[in-house]
């Protein structure tokens, strides 16, 4: 269903961002999937086709690649957009820091989606701090609509000052849906043109100092850009005693609260569209205008920290707003009430609990983790980031740090135990195919080079499942559906210096179990090294999968729940002291047959 957005439509924040990018003459967009940013690039690809535009759209293999590819396009005078989740920006940080110095020619929009909560991330870090660290401007949209409207501003700003501009939406902007009015379609008529300027594009340390000084000048000019100044929701309220400063979606919560309780005449509400750089005049004078100031922002106290005299300023830094976690209406309302000396009625508390997520019924990862646990129950399990982090439910994931860390940490455990003469435990690293390509390859080269020994299981389901089944470099398909020569994992592994490489179907529990034992022996043998097992089976979501076998539970089921506790397939249901199989959920993978200790589960 390819459709142009006519005048107005209800759009998810990420779609609104994509539309803004499309409308503003961008000819190159790149990304690596990550919640809550994933839908930005897929929506760009969608609109590109709907609007019949010529554009290069790519899923890059990681955020650093995405950043640098797009940057070269901006060096060539054209408009680029690169999107990622906040921890993805850590991966691209090196490139960002340097690009702030070199600057750009064509507009360069960086979207880094933060995840206060965190809902789907390992940290709730604040990308606005990264903007400050890199010395680039950051826009903090309060809604999908504003995120859309900010794109035009971001491109103008980026080109006027030749600087990358960060748009920082949060989960509640990315995944909110709202009516958004479309803008003018600015068709890209530019041709790529690269003007050589080594003092800038290839600056040596000496020239870098000059570039840094230039950057500082740009920042002070940007801080006083008229369009992006902090402003009061209602003019004339700046004579109030109290002021609430807010940015991002927190601003919208505060606005709704003040509107509903008719408080907009009682307190000044100041909105900050661009939390960095802020003009010195604002940061100095705001505290002289009001008796008391409350700053509400996500997730770190970026605005609060910049205010010079904080004696009458409260917020996340002062502890008046909780200094961790998402800001929700239920968090903000009591804080605002207290600030305004209002007795609000107490809020009803949410009941704790709920269902934890689990791998799908018939998920190949569950089968692999079950085999790992069975073959090497005493091993250290170094895990990684993806759907398969849920292997933690099966007790087969002991660590989860960040993308690609499983392999480096497995190597680290090996050297740690070896160098201290501790009893050598089996070590099993597990990593998905997309994560392996993202940042596992260099880790593996390092491990081989430095003589580590462990078992590496690559969970190859030929997709980036967690974030919505985006293709990988090994899938042989690109973001726009065209085909590419798929990366061959086994050849790559050989090239890294691995000699023990076995590929087995994930559902083959016996095969994987015996290979794991064999691999363990290999890692300990005289000429052994790193053993790699590619556990291969396509992800059930998105693949054309047919149910070929029917599995049933026999009368001899003792109702011990072993299968439910240790295997956790959602299709296994405990009812009336027995287990039965929910035929709707069951994919017919047949793996549970190997799980039941009394062999009650059978293939029909």
């Amino acid at each position, binding site marked *: 269903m390819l459709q142009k957005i006519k005048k107005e439509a*209800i759009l998810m924040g990420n779609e609104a961002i994509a539309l803004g990018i499309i409308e503003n003459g961008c000819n190159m967009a790149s990304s690596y999937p990550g919640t809550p940013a994933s839908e930005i690039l897929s929506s760009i690809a969608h609109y590109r086709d709907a609007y019949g535009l010529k554009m290069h759209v790519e899923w890059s293999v990681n955020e650093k690649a995405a950043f640098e590819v797009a940057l070269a396009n901006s060096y060539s005078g054209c408009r680029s957009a690169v999107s990622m989740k906040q921890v993805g920006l850590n991966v691209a940080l090196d490139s960002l820091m340097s690009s702030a110095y070199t600057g750009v020619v064509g507009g360069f929009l960086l979207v880094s989606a933060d995840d206060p909560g965190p809902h789907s991330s390992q940290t709730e870090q604040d990308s606005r701090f990264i903007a400050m660290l890199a010395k680039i401007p950051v826009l903090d949209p309060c809604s999908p609509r504003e995120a859309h409207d900010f794109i035009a501003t971001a491109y103008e700003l980026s080109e006027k000052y030749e600087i990358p501009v960060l748009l920082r939406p949060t989960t509640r902007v990315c995944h909110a849906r709202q009516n958004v009015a479309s803008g003018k379609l600015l068709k890209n008529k530019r041709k790529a043109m690269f003007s050589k300027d080594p003092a800038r594009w290839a600056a040596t340390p000496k020239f870098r100092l000059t570039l840094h000084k230039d950057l500082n000048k740009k920042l002070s000019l940007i801080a006083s850009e008229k369009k992006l100044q902090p402003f009061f929701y209602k003019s004339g309220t700046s004579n109030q005693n109290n002021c609430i400063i807010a940015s991002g979606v927190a601003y919208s919560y505060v606005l709704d609260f003040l509107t509903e309780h008719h408080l907009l005449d009682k307190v000044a509400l100041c909105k900050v569209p661009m939390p960095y750089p802020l003009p010195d005049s604002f940061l100095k004078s705001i505290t002289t205008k009001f008796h008391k100031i409350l700053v509400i922002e996500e997730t770190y106290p970026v605005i609060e920290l910049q205010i010079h005299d904080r004696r009458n300023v409260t917020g996340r830094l002062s502890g008046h707003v909780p200094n961790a976690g998402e800001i929700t209406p239920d968090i903000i309302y009591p804080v605002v009430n207290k600030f305004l000396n209002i007795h609000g009625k107490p809020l009803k508390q949410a*009941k704790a609990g709920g269902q934890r*997520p689990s791998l799908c019924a018939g998920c190949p990862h569950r089968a692999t983790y079950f085999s790992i646990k069975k073959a090497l129950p005493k091993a250290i399990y170094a895990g990684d980031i993806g759907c398969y982090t849920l292997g933690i439910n099966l007790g087969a994931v002991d660590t989860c740090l960040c993308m690609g860390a499983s392999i480096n940490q497995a190597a680290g455990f090996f050297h740690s135990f070896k160098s201290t003469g501790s009893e050598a435990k089996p070590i099993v690293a597990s990593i998905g195919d997309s994560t392996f390509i993202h940042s596992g390859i260099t880790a593996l080269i390092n491990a081989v080079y430095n003589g580590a020994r462990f078992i590496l299981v690559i969970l190859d389901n030929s997709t980036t499942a967690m974030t919505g089944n985006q293709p990988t470099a090994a899938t042989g398909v690109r973001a726009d559906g065209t085909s590419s020569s798929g990366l061959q994992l086994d050849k790559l592994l050989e090239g890294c210096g691995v000699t023990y490489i076995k590929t087995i179907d994930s559902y083959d529990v016996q095969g994987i179990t015996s290979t794991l034992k064999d691999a363990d022996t290999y890692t300990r043998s005289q000429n052994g090294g790193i053993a790699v097992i590619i556990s291969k089976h396509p992800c059930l979501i998105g693949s054309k999968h047919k149910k070929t076998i029917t599995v049933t539970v026999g009368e001899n089921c003792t109702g011990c729940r072993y299968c439910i506790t240790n295997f956790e397939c959602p299709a296994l249901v405990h009812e009336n002291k027995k287990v039965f199989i929910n035929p709707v959920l069951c994919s017919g993978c047949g793996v549970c047959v190997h799980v039941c200790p009394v062999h009650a589960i059978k293939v029909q």
Partner: protein
Amino acid sequence: MSTQKQIDTQIVICGRGGQGVLFLTRLLDESAIMIGSKVISSETHGMAMRGGSVASSVRIGNYESPLIPSGEADILIAVNEHEVPFNMHLMKKDALVFVNSSIRRHNAIHAEKIARLLGSPMVTNLVLLGFASAHAGFPFQYAHINKVLQKISPSKALELNLRALTEGYNLATA
């Protein structure tokens, strides 16, 4: 444009990942737009989509922010009855609660069973919505939702989707 009047309603939809909570959210969003209302909603994505607890909020009316504060929601649509307790704090005292449940109680329907009889448990969500749309307190009438469903359903699923919505509605009015 439909003849429905402007409304101001806050709806919570809850269930587990994969039970069609997102689709209902979209359907209600579009239903609001079609009568010219402002709407803002919030969805759960990411890890929780793998069978974990998910909840959406739909705020129809003059709202700028996507989340519903505790004690302010008018309607709960629970595609999974086990998720009801985790969302009750959001509800007003006199809120309407529509739930997919095998237990007979007020505003409950065994939508999943009906969906299975229709051919797929995937349409449990629409049976429940059809059921809710028959209630006088529900902001959108069946006919209106039916029209929106025709607009946003993928063509392959349209026929079954419409049957599910209609069946839920008929059972409520029978």
